[in-house]
């Protein structure tokens, strides 16, 4: 691992709730410290949640307890509370640096992909379900990740004291369904500290595939070059 820094970055952090955002922001705090050029937070209120409540439905907390599903009003209030907490933590992490925040409503990944255009990196928040550190997973095509992605994964691993594990993703044009399922199957069984996706390298451009990877990883996910133009904008 080279472990060297790749320079100040402009990062967009997105999540569907503050619990997910907090996991991402803490990781970012350890990784970036005062070196961030700019940070932008996006909290997306997923409409699917409020529309999914049924009589028998319960919420399963992260500790394994069953609680009643909050009403639409409760969800709304919770969302507003999460937004305030997200904003506050964002400002603390940014310190004297530049930062901004916005709230959106709708489908998470779609909004984040849209908002991330022009940013060096997209960090999708996801709370972890187990306490172990885990590994840094670098997902790239079989031909290999870009040097920037490899360096970033190494830097992240160094900060977390975790090893880097590479997983290959087949380019979408010639992707077969079995190969994609194998990736998700493998990814879902690895305890991961964070996932790094080299998006410009190909393989995960489709939002549904990206969503599937993030769901399977169950940890914060860094998407490099989120607008599909490469992850080299973080240099210098």
């Amino acid at each position, binding site marked *: 691992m080279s472990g060297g820094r790749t320079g100040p970055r402009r990062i967009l952090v997105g999540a*569907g*709730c*503050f*619990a*997910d955002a907090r996991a991402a922001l803490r990781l970012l705090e350890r990784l970036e410290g005062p070196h961030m050029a700019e940070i932008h937070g996006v909290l997306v209120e*997923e409409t*699917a*949640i409020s*529309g*999914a*409540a*049924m*009589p*028998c*439905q*319960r*919420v*399963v*907390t*992260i*500790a*394994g*307890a*069953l*609680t009643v*599903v*909050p009403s639409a009003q409760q*969800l709304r209030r*919770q*969302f507003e509370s*999460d937004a305030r907490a997200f904003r506050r933590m964002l400002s603390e992490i940014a310190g004297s640096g530049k930062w901004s925040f916005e709230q959106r409503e709708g489908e998470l990944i779609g909004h984040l992909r849209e908002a991330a255009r022009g940013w060096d990196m997209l960090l999708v928040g*996801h*709370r972890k*379900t*187990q*306490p*172990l*550190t*885990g590994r840094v997973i670098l997902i790239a095509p079989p031909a290999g990740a870009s040097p920037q992605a490899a360096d970033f994964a190494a830097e992240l691993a160094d900060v977390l004291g975790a*090893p880097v594990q590479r997983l290959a993703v087949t380019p979408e044009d010639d992707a077969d369904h079995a190969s994609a399922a194998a990736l998700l*199957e493998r990814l*879902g*069984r*690895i*305890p*991961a500290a964070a996932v790094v996706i080299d998006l410009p390298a190909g393989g995960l451009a489709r939002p549904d595939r990206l969503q599937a990877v993030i*769901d*399977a990883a*169950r940890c914060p996910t860094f998407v490099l070059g989120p607008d599909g133009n490469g992850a080299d904008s973080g240099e210098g």
Partner: protein
Amino acid sequence: MEELPSEKLRNRCDPATLPFRTTAEIEDLRDLIGQDRALDAIRLSSELPHRDFNLFVLGPSGTGRHSAVDKLLREQALKRQVPSDWVYVNNFAAAHKPVAMRLPAGTATTLRRAMQDLVDDLASDIPALFESDDYQTQRRAIEQELGEAHESAMTEFAERAKAEKVALLRTPMGFMLAALHEGQIVKPDDFQKLSPEEQEEIEEKIERLQEELAVVLREAPKLEKEHRKRVEDLNANMAERAVSARVAEVSAELRAIESVADYLEKVRQDMIAHAELFLVAASQKQEGNFPDAISRSHHRPEFDRYVVNVMVTQNCAEDAGAPVEGEHLPTLDRLIGRIDHVSQMGSLVTNFTMIKPGALHRANGGYLVLDARHVLSEPYAWDSLKRCLRNQSVSINSLAERLSLVSTTSLEPDPIPLDVRVVLIGDRMLHALLVMLDPDFNELFKIQADFEEVVDRNPDNMVLFARLIGSYAKREGLRPVTAEGVARLLDEATRVAEDSEKLSLRLRAVGDLLREAEHYAGGRGCDNVEAADIERAIAEKERRSSRIKDRMQEAVTRETILIDTEGEKSGQINGLSVIGLGDYRFGRPSRITARVRMGAGKLIDIEREVELGGPLHSKGVMILSGYLASRYALDVPFSLHASLVFEQSYGGVDGDSASSAELYALLSALSDLPIKQGFAVTGSVNQSGEIQAIGGVNEKIEGFFETCLARGLTGDQGVMIPKSNVEHLMLRDDVVQAVEDGKFRIIPVASIDEGIEVLTGTPAGVRNADGVFPEDSVNARVEAKLRGYAEMRRAFAKSGKSGQNGNGEDQ
């Protein structure tokens, strides 16, 4: 009455009787002379193995007590086995109760070094071990295994849910499951449109999967616990390999000691359990000038728990024996040890490394010599010393803790078994007080070594004394002393002894005199210390000390203090007293007067009435009353009223050495016979009229001699002393010379009758067969006066004027 010839006034040593010319020729003498009784007692105490035979050495200072004790104890110590070493080590189970460990002599420091090396080695080994690929691989394997188990369970759940067309949604509160229909989430409105069977199926599915998800998520904390346990096991296994290997390297000689082996096993277990200490220490290590290989990690405070605190370690040289220790400042702490504290964050904290040994620890297995007065004057020191001797163990208790003066963390160290012979050195008064007032003393100090103050002045002892002087001169690097010089020193020792037949054993005073004389001999450029040098040292010492004496003498000469040395006076006599200032004493005359009249048998001691007289003086005066009442006019009531006083005495008067003088003054007043004022008198008297010996006879005679000399010696002047004091005479040469020249007289008397004859020049008189004293004798005149008082008293009573005379006497 016989005057004493000059040769009786001073016992002179003839240098010709000494078998050497200078002390350089004579054999050394390291032993004390005349102290056999005390030395045997010291030997006995040092040899007895039984408890409580501790020793109290009593006697005046300067008699060689300390050196004799030191010499004999060191001789005996060489014959005794070298005692054990003692250390305090950490009690890993209860840190506030440090463990005392007995070790073979001389091994304490070896163990301490071994433990320091062990810590230093492990401070390098353990961090290296935990940074090794082997360890990291094993640790990651554990994490991987447990992490994968959880993630697999989550993945499998997600796959099951997906297979049953259920979506896993994330909400701010947790996960929520939602049914899918054609890839879309079934909304409540759509759900209501489904058939009851379909609704029931979805509800059953959702409920079941919710329970399954809850079970999977509840496993996460257990996973963390399992992970922690397995990592701890791994760490322990790794640390155990390193620690066991290094502990096994500790020398076989140390491990063969049972107590050390037990301790090392406890250390091994503790180091394995606290391996993180070595990792923390490594992470905090500062980059310094020295490479890691020679860094001293054992100095770091976190490794204090492995320190071996050496309380006492013995010298194992071939000529070493049991310890002989002393403590010049025997405070409680310095005697039994102490527990230090340091301030941390405003609190006082301590640990077993701050336990400091005391004199009892150092002397354990041997001898401890202490000054009794110092021990008794230090708060709680005597009490603690007794407790340690009684319990045969040393327990460290701080004074502050005992008095509840401070409230802070403290320790309860194991008591250390005590086998020590304590030797207290003190004076006789202290010994007597301890015997009387401390019931423990006789139990714990069963042997006393009582040092003599004097030894017989016989030829053998004089030669031994000369050898002592010679040895002292050699030991101190002084010039040899000539036979004449030794003879002069012997005479001075006799004078200090206040007995012409004895030699003083206050060797320090002799040594001091010799060193001063040696200085004068050096000034003269002489190779030897001669009699003149000794003489000068004596004279110089006298001169340095005699300022007060000279001023008093001047006051007498100038008649500020009234003393008659010529003529005759009734009811007035020169008494003699001694004033002591440290080790310097001098005599001075005092005028004593007596006044008499008719009364009811009361003898007033004015000194006593004004509380200037001590009890012994009062006793002496009461004896006079008894003498008079039982000797004269036995057939009539004792009808005397008399008063006695030491004129111009403004300080206290004690002792009965002036009681004969007071009686002479009374007899003179009663008989109307004047006393010759050229005499001074000393001696006590009993109710039978016998004169008894007193102390300080030489100083008293010399005091009156100087007064007479200042006014001019007439040849009629002299001092009357008790006959029993003749053998104590060791007068100065100038007094002896004056007597030899007939200018001064020393008259010994055995009874009041003898004395009164000398003083008045009138026979005392002895009752004849009819019980009557010869006419005009002193006694006849006294009896007549007393009888006359009785008659007057009877006549007075008959006249009925009793109570109207206003004299206020008891009737």
